[in-house]
């Protein structure tokens, strides 16, 4: 699923900023953008003011983020401060401006042949799953989700997945299941494997989801992350190796890639 982006970047206003556990959620007004980006598509973001001059004299390039929600001309995004780009973005509040390009890439395809949607992810992988849950719920089926987080502070981000019935796992056991999200996913697949798994999360988690789905012969769509300079196919920096050989660009051929096309999810 791919909604075309208006040509070029546009200047948009942050309409609110909220802290949700370890995450910062920004809402931006995007009156010029298409009203219905496809769940799993992403936007390139940079601040208009002071993009650069942070730690190590960065950031310089825009950063790619899947949208969390798109409603009535408002987009929302979720960040965790993990580097110079996300640090600057996480500082923003209502009234500040962003450069925004998108929606970009190809999003999720909804299930067919009666399979149920099973959402599996965690950490900053919540947004594309939340956007997908909204689509599925609007079609009349509230999906099941399993989410993994580091600890209770991060697990607060699970509330952002409004339109799914979510079960949470944490690495430290501070909330929910003490263990890995793939353990919750395995239980779900044992209960009913006639499913399509939709996943987004850190590379290690995505790889575990991929391997588990392959083992159960369950189709999976993985929303991948890769360092990219442009987001629209220009730089060729964001490639992942394919099972059949060669590479595809995460920005234009993904970010959602069928797990069956990969031998593994790269570590970075």
């Amino acid at each position: 699923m791919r909604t075309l982006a208006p040509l070029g970047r546009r200047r948009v206003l942050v309409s609110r900023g909220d802290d949700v556990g370890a995450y910062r959620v920004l809402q931006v007004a995007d009156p010029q953008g298409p009203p219905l980006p496809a769940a799993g598509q992403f936007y390139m973001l940079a601040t208009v003011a002071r993009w650069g001059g942070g730690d190590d004299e960065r950031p310089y390039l825009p950063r790619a983020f899947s949208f969390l929600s798109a409603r009535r001309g408002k987009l929302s995004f979720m960040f965790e401060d993990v580097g110079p780009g996300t640090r600057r973005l996480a500082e923003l509040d209502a009234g500040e401006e962003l450069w925004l390009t998108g929606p970009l890439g190809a999003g999720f395809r909804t299930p067919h042949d009666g399979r149920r949607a099973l959402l599996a992810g965690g950490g900053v992988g919540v947004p594309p799953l939340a956007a997908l849950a909204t689509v599925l719920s609007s079609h009349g089926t509230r999906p099941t989700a399993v989410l993994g987080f580091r600890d209770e502070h991060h697990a607060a981000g699970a509330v952002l997945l409004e339109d799914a019935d979510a079960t949470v796992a944490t690495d430290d056991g501070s909330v929910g299941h003490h263990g890995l999200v793939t353990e919750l996913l395995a239980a779900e697949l044992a209960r009913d494997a006639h499913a399509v798994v939709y996943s987004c999360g850190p590379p290690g988690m995505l790889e575990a989801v991929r391997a588990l789905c392959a083992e159960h012969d369950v189709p999976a769509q993985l929303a991948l992350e890769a360092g990219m300079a442009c987001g629209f196919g220009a730089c060729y920096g964001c490639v992942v190796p394919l099972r059949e050989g060669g590479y595809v660009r995460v920005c234009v051929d993904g970010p959602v890639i069928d797990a069956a096309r990969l031998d593994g999810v790269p570590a970075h």
Partner: protein
Amino acid sequence: MIEFCGLQLQHPIVNGSGTFDAIAARRAFGDALLADFPFSAFVSKTITLQPRAGNPPPRLWEAQAGMINSIGLPNRGLEGYLEYDLPQLAQLPVPLITNVMGSSEDEVARLVEAIDERDEVAAIELNVSCPNVRTGLDIGADPRSLAALVRAVRPLARKPLIVKLTPNTADVAAVAAAAEGEGADAVSLINTLRATALAPSAKRPWLGGGTGGLSGAAIRNVALSQVAAVAGRISLPIIGMGGIASGTHAVDLISVGAALVAVGTENFRDPCAGSRIASELKSLQIRH
């Protein structure tokens, strides 16, 4: 309209090879891209004789006010370019410059001959930042090997021949003079500066290709210096590039001798950087 090597161009802003994929951009932005194309001519990514998958990732590193890339020239090869890419690039509303690279005179000759036959292509750019198979040295780093290459392929091209110079050489003006001496129609510079990034924790090279090329704002003053040096030595038209992000930057490069200005890394930050810079340049030129 401005004239460059017989090409009629709407404005002096083009793209640097490998910094804008018009086919992929059309997938993202649709036909709006054709209606408002950012450049006055489109320079293709580098085409090689055989297909190349490119370097293993990671391929990018964000540097201070710039980036290092080690992409490895992925492309479909000559046959794939002619069959698949060229018909799509021919739909662009601007002249097409095809960039080619080979590791021997024979390879480059075969590329130039095949591309020169195609009416869809307005000019050919030679990427000479490639190790010579015999010497292992970059062809474009040495005036004598560059002269030999241009001498070998010049008679094969009826179209304008542009030599894309590498900055990774002791005397870029001497290499430019060699290109001029053998009948090149224009030169373009600067390509990226060879650079290394270390993985933060492991202190080994981060990029899958080992070393990469530095581009962006960080190299703008290197570009000014090298374009000025080349302009002082030869009389061919120059496509200047390196860290251009505004009309003011373009004016600077033109003032030291560039006829056209190419935008590279800034395209990644702003997909319409070409149109923006062209319009900024126009208003600056009217003012002065």
